[in-house]
């Protein structure tokens, strides 16, 4: 898996590859690892598919209950704290690495990384999954805060594509979700489409 999310000028963008493996076998080549938690909060899932789907489903439920009880949407911070609490208190049972990202007008969007132990890290750029190990250098060299949407999409596309080429556990297509004041927009990149995945090797 390769998952990423960043804060840009107008909001946040999440991106992920689409490969799910059982050992070296590709169980699903068109996985959607970007999961909606509320209207404006999404998460990237990495680790055990069963664990992260269960955690995401529970998060979705608790966040919808929060909205009913308090009469307003939960903040990104609230969603991320809840996610981290679930991952921390059940760390012995879970194999779940999450990135929670969302947009709200007060903060202009936030990105939280929740790695394996369940710690919580607010970051301008978060990368995760096995593929992320291959792109720390690229991200350190090329990430800037307050990028335009076009710059940010290009950066994340290149980052995930680089990870997909070198990591056997990442691959397939690139999915993105853009969150800003206008709502959400999805992007999709694949080799046989009008939006191809960049190629770096040869």
């Amino acid at each position, binding site marked *: 898996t390769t998952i990423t999310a960043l804060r840009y000028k107008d909001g946040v963008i999440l991106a992920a590859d*689409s490969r799910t493996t059982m050992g070296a076998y590709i169980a699903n080549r*068109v996985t*959607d690892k970007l999961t*909606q938690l509320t209207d404006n909060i999404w998460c990237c899932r990495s680790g055990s598919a069963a664990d992260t*789907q269960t955690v995401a489903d529970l998060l979705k439920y608790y966040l919808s209950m929060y909205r009913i009880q308090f009469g307003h949407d939960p903040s990104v911070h609230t969603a991320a704290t809840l996610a981290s609490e679930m991952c921390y208190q059940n760390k012995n049972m879970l194999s779940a690495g999450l990135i929670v990202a969302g947009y709200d007008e007060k903060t202009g969007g936030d990105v939280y990384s929740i790695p394996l132990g369940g710690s919580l890290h607010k970051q301008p750029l978060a990368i995760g999954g096995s593929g992320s190990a291959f792109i720390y250098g690229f991200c350190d060299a090329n990430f800037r805060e307050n990028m335009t949407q076009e710059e940010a999409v290009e950066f994340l596309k290149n980052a995930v594509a680089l990870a997909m080429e070198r*990591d*056997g*556990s990442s691959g397939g297509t690139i999915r993105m979700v853009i969150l800003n004041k206008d709502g959400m927009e999805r992007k999709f990149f*694949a*080799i046989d489409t009008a939006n191809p995945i960049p190629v770096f090797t040869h």
Partner: protein
Amino acid sequence: MSFLELTEVWGKPQKDIFFPSGSEVEESTDAPIQRTVQPIVTGSSVLALKFADGVMIAADNLASYGSLARFYDVERLTKVGDNTIVGAGGDISDYQQIQRLLEKLEIKEGNYGDGYALQPSYIHEYLSKVLYARRNKLDPYWNQLIVAGVDGENKEPYVAFADLRGTTYSAPAIATGFAMHLALPMLRKATDDDRWKTLSKESARATIDECMRVLFYRDARSLNKFSVATITPEGIEFQTDQSVSSKWAFAEKQYGYGTQTV
């Protein structure tokens, strides 16, 4: 004697009985001898099938280091003599050592100048014995090999398998690694019940391409860049930098993992 005194020694070596104090065994502090116990830089599948005019064999160009796709340009098919190709999966360093052995064999046989040429069946026999000898030394060459070619005076299509355990077999279609699970059924559909005897070169290639496509879709240690060698009585056609088309566009409209619709 208490129960604890009795049970404390259970499962522990009784070295004071078998190796009395001061014996050579007790004194020895040498670490156990370490051998190759796992492959490091690895190649994935090899597949081969017979067809009407000869045989076709294919392998991709990826060498993995665990899950890292480390080398994109490794040729896993080797020409030996005039009518044999050896394809290898498994450890690449052991494969290179096998290449050196085959090179030595080829030179040695050529030097006789007796007009006899190395046949695929000879090479398979040789390799199987090298592999078996190494496994008996508990230091195996960590490979799965396919030997393909046209054999004997009649240039009969020949495909045979040999692996790190010294296992051997021959069949009209053979595959190693993931292809053994994913591609072999397709190869057999094209070759079983003597169908290979009427299989055209074009159909054989189409079958290889379909197998490589499935492997590219489903094997996380595969690469859409591969070599195909076609061996017929006329000679060897070695095609490199081959690739297959693939379909992904349908996935754009596939959201979430159940209930999500955006």
